[in-house]
């Protein structure tokens, strides 16, 4: 074995290298405490979901639970004749599929499904349903630096865990301390909307979309429209979605779709 000091555990991208993954997997498989895993590797394993998945995957492979390395696989594909499926179909099933009654029934079923789908498409969709269809809380794009953002970090964790009620409590506390922080305001509004408190989310989204060159202008406008939709204020929602539809941003197409469905 090489000198311990020279051993490299990470690759150029900062993830565990092949050998460290193999070593870690061996440690898990054998439960051999004499296999030393450096604390930096353990810390990375706990932090990095990708490396953790890689290790667990490899453990499955060496434990023979998975069959990734199956040399027979390719031979099997090549040796199986292409039409074997048809040959394998049981005569009884084939008989059913080929029968006239089956074909007529299938056509009738397709026609029925088509009519049902057309009815649903034409039928005006309720604002509540549209909201459910189009709303998903904004993804977490926050990078937290320093200890000053502790409350924000706490709130974002709850937000990521979809514990919106708890997130509201933490974001509100943070908002009381720093009411000018756009991140807090935006994610508080999202948590409120996700918790069906659209009326309380509206003023926050409104303020954010009014800000000049604010980083949440565009998404706030979209969520404002959705908030109105949730509150069943269709006229106001339509006005907001018309505005979004006229702009060219990632929400324009969705706004157009909603407007069509509201008409």
């Amino acid at each position: 074995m090489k000198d311990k000091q020279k051993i490299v555990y990470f690759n150029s991208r900062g993830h565990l290298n092949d050998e460290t993954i193999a070593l870690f997997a061996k440690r898990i498989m054998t439960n051999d405490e004499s296999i030393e895993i450096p604390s930096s590797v353990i810390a990375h394993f706990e932090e990095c979901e990708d490396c953790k998945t890689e290790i667990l995957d490899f453990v499955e492979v060496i434990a023979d639970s998975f069959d990734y390395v199956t040399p027979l696989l390719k031979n099997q594909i090549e040796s199986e004749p292409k039409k074997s499926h048809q040959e394998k179909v049981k005569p009884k099933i084939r008989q059913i599929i080929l029968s006239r009654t089956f074909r007529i029934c299938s056509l009738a079923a397709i026609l029925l499904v088509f009519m049902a789908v057309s009815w649903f498409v034409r039928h005006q969709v309720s604002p509540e349903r549209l909201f459910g269809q189009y709303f998903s809380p904004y993804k977490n794009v926050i990078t937290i630096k320093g200890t000053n953002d502790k409350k924000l970090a706490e709130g974002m964790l709850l937000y990521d865990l979809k514990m919106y009620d708890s997130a509201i409590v933490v974001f509100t506390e943070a908002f009381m301390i720093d009411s000018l922080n756009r991140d807090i305001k935006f994610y508080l509004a999202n948590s409120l909307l996700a918790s069906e408190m659209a009326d309380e989310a509206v003023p926050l989204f409104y303020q954010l979309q009014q800000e000049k060159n604010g980083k949440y202008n565009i998404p706030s406008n979209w969520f404002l429209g959705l908030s109105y939709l949730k509150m069943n204020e269709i006229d106001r929602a339509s006005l907001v979605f018309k505005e979004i539809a006229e702009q060219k941003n990632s929400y324009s197409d969705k706004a157009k779709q909603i407007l069509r469905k509201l008409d």
Partner: protein
Amino acid sequence: MVSVAVTKRLMAYQGMTDFLLFYSKILKDVVVQYSQDEDLRLLHSDFHLLILKYKPLIDKLVDERIRILPEFEPERQDMIQQIFENLLSKHETILIQYDSEQNFRNYLWKIIKNECVNSFQRENKHIRRFVPMLQGNDEIFDPSDFYDDLVVKETFRIFDGIINSYTISKKKLVVCLKVILSVKISLFDLTQLFNDHQSGYSRKELEDISKNLTSGGETLRGILIRFHLIRPVLNLAEKANTDEHSYWRWTNQQIIHAINYLNNKHGMNFDRETLKILAEKYFEDFYDKQFQF
């Protein structure tokens, strides 16, 4: 032919572990990548061949279940055939739903698993029989109970694998998970944190801490109170000075990783709530039972 990139990876061997294991790791990556490329090509050019490629996976999943439920043995061929047929009919759906960034094998595995469950449920409707009980009483035997039991055992096995993968921080994870889930933390759990070295706590002190850790309920406040109580013990064991919020965040992060692993790799459908139920059952029926003397 081995590519330059693969050769470079092989050349990076440092002697930390057995070469064969290291080689297997790289080989696995190459095979997975090769298989993925082939799958994507076949998905558009020859779907039938693609499903045929995964036929052994269907056989394997069906056989695993039949091993536990042998009464399904006579239906084995029919079930495999039916799953195969159903998969073939899903070409259009797969073309629409499948995201090529995802590993196709994992994606298809989820579908095959679901098909397998459906197939057993369908067959189960026909297979109901009476079995004599040990005491001589007759009772209706429902194979679906056994099937559910099998699914639970399989999930426990995977979850146990996740817990064990934490090697030296496994005991810390167990305690932290129990704190979050409001599961009773035993004296044994606490002493295990210190492995072979002295904790500095007397047995009585650890017992008192263990008793106090049952209060607070499942609210955020309750969880943080419990982390506040356990923090000095964890810090002593870890030789660290971590605050309760950091322990809470760390545990939540591990929960998210576990949920993603179970869902993405094993085709399950866990969220925080259902994982909680799984973990509670795991500790109650499996983990803690190993250490009851």
